[in-house]
């Protein structure tokens, strides 16, 4: 096995922070090398150094035994290093072919040779076994397909080293399977891959070796077969996490939320109900209509028809304002996109859905606003130097707590969590779960949408599985297994008309 890459003694400091100190990493041809560590451990910084975004303060990088300096991203590309970020770098308005060969299109004279362009694109797509039309506009593709286009682009550069940063964060189970198929193909071709992921379960399927970094320090490299998930977690956090999900005995009360006949363009749900103190998990593949269901309940999207009962009373929910007034809150799946105003302070974000309650004759009572923010910073243990810190500067877990605080201010009875722990590290996940348990203890009815089956199984009292905008099955905690959920989610079995 030939060694493609060796990074030795890499150190990097940013003003006031030592991001990496003396970190090493090596990568063989045809190997998938998993890189693990909590958020902020320095994984992304290390990969940014490898891809030329940052330059290391100390340390050497060798590619195929030759010492190189990677001064910029262009240089990294020439050295055969490609990185696929969590956020894609694609032009949505251009075709697949144009994106892959961006600025490198085959030309005759000054004109782009369209025929050859399509041919070359098709060749790469075939090589990867992808059934994507080269002429399709990227914006019309699903997230998974866009990721495939990114990979195809990397292959088009003849990259020997591929960095995948959280590639499965936005994918459903079947999409993950096809991604892994491509990874197997690339392995066979001798491409070395550095694979960053929080989902430790899936690493077992592809990783050959794993390296762990913690707080910018190199902890070690291990053959994947020789470590268990528990040891990995232990190495990452530096302490023992006995349980991924807090053990909790819930006190489930009367029906607090009930909705009938929710119908919109994308959703057709006959019946859904949640008890006080209960967590109803909603599972399903991407595009099954889970988020659309949440948005319909929350009054964010128009519905043709729906009847909603909160605490036994029929209420009309035709806008977000009316949903909030009736005690319904919604924590969106993408907190950066539509959950937080990142350039605003922690205090402003915490109070965002609560402003009208803090106002007297239109004027904000600043001291009440500060007291309120302080209360939630303390009770949710939001780690921030001050409530006037911009939310942008906080970690994912702390940002998620701010979104949660936003709803706790209001007297919330029903809270919808959409992918509550996406992009959050192990330690912070546990905290979010504990907070959910605390809420259920206070009699809040919780609806939790998640693509993480472990999470669904670990947290839910009941599980509603969605497929094609409908609820295809409901499972109790005891009877639910990954296989059963998947059968319902893929439409293999469908208990028609059954409500949750």
């Amino acid at each position: 096995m030939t060694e493609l890459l060796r990074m030795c003694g890499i150190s990097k400091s940013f003003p006031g922070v030592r991001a990496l100190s003396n970190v090493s990493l090596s990568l063989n041809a045809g190997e998938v090398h998993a890189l693990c560590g909590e958020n902020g451990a320095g994984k992304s910084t290390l990969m940014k150094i490898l891809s030329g975004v940052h330059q290391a303060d100390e340390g050497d990088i060798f590619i195929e035994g030759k010492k190189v300096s990677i001064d910029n991203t262009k240089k990294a590309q020439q050295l055969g290093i490609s990185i696929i970020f969590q956020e894609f770098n694609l032009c949505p308005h251009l075709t697949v072919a144009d994106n892959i060969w961006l600025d490198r299109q085959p030309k005759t004279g000054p004109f782009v040779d369209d025929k050859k362009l399509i041919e070359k694109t098709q060749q790469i797509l075939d090589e990867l076994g992808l059934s994507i039309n080269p002429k399709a506009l990227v914006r019309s593709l699903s997230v998974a397909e866009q990721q495939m286009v990114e990979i195809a682009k990397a292959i088009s550069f003849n990259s020997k080293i591929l960095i995948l940063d959280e590639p499965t964060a936005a994918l459903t189970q079947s999409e993950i399977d096809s991604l892994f198929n491509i990874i197997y193909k690339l392995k066979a071709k001798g491409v070395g891959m550095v694979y960053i992921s929080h989902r430790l379960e899936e690493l077992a399927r592809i990783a050959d070796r794993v390296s762990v970094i913690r707080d910018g320090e190199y902890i070690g490299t291990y053959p994947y077969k020789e470590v268990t998930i528990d040891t990995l977690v232990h190495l990452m956090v530096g302490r023992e996490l006995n349980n991924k999900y807090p053990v909790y005995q819930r006190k489930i009360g009367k029906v607090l939320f009930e909705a009938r006949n929710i119908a919109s363009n994308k959703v057709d749900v006959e019946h859904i109900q949640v008890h006080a103190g209960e967590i109803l998990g909603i599972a399903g593949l991407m595009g099954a209509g889970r988020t659309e269901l949440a948005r319909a309940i929350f009054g964010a999207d128009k519905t043709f028809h729906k009847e909603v009962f909160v605490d036994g009373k029929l209420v009309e929910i035709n806008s977000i304002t009316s949903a909030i007034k009736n005690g319904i809150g919604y924590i969106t799946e993408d907190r950066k996109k539509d959950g937080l105003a990142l350039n605003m302070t922690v205090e402003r974000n915490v109070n965002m859905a609560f402003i009208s309650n803090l106002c007297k004759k239109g004027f904000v009572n600043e001291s009440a606003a500060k007291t309120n923010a302080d209360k939630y910073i303390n009770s949710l243990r939001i780690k921030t130097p001050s409530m006037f810190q911009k939310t942008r500067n906080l970690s994912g877990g702390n940002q998620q707590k701010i979104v949660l605080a936003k709803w706790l201010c209001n007297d919330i009875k029903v809270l919808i969590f959409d992918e509550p722990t996406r992009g959050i590290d192990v330690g912070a996940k546990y905290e979010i779960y504990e907070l959910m348990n605390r809420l259920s203890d206070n009699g809040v009815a919780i609806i939790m949408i998640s693509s993480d089956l472990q999470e669904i199984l670990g947290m839910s009292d009941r599980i509603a599985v969605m497929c094609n905008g409908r609820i295809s099955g409901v499972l109790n905690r005891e009877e639910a297994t990954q296989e059963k959920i998947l059968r319902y989610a893929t439409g293999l079995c469908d208990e028609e008309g059954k409500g949750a």
Partner: protein
Amino acid sequence: MMSSKVETAKNGLFKNRSEFLQKFLAFGVLIFLCIFFGVLTGGNFLQIDNLLTIALQVTPYAILGFGLTFVLITGGTDLSAGSVLGFGGIVCAKAITLGFSIPVAILIGILTGVLAGLINGLFITKLNVTPFIATLGTQYAFRGLTQLVGQGKPVSIRALGDEQITKVFQFMGGGTVFGKIPFPTIIMLITATILGIVLSKTGYGRRLFAVGSNEEAARLSGINVVKTKLTAYIICGATSAMAGILLAARLASAQSNAGSGYELEGIAAAVIGGTSVIGGEGGILGTVIGAFVMGVLRNGLNLLKVDAFVQMVIIGTIIVLGVWYDTSRRKKQAESIKPVKNCESSK
């Protein structure tokens, strides 16, 4: 846990260091320019009379800039502000010549601006036309209406032949109080105070920043985005008309081409003062300072007898440099993400 109270006291007037730096920088530039021109003109620039002239000159730009600050904070823009300025001014003047009393005429003028802002806002919020295009269109339309009201000619108050009305109207536009302070400047400062308080102390102000910072997050937090944006455009229309009325008053005559191109001056003032053109950030004090930076530049260059065309080149360059500096500062700030570990030490 965290001692956020200490932080509050330390920050005082400004919420964070960068906000302070921004204000301080714009203000520093202003002071620097004053000293710079003071020295080069042998002190002429710093004479009280000259400074008061500048204050009078910047008044319409500043008032226009206040409304634009609101609109810019939402992430929008209003290219029709200059036309609304002309429209409001000429409607007010026309109302006086038709025999309405001055207060009523002013009210009619401002209502014209409110209506214009409402139209802009409806196009943008209800019909989802991008602000740039919507207000580019209304820029033409409102200018056309202005010309129609004046039938291509200025509307003169003097033509009415009532000395008293002309005198009162002219005082509003150029009279002085407390010795030499121009009356319109006082109006400008009062407006600045009121709008500054609206922006920083009211629930509306908070909603406005939230909408500008992340519209979808604001909407999902139950904030009425349409109402918030609509109000910003209405405020912009009202301040534009106000500036137009003051300008018409100074000359006792409303020109049908008054205010043409002023929207860009107003935007420049806001941007120099630290308002972000992509929304979510900004303030009235900054816009006042920005308007003065522009006014001081123009006046100082005039005193130095710099060619008018060269002046345009200089002012244009300064606007671009100012915005470039601001954008790069923001970018740097966004990149210097501090990991949580730093924060734990403050526990």
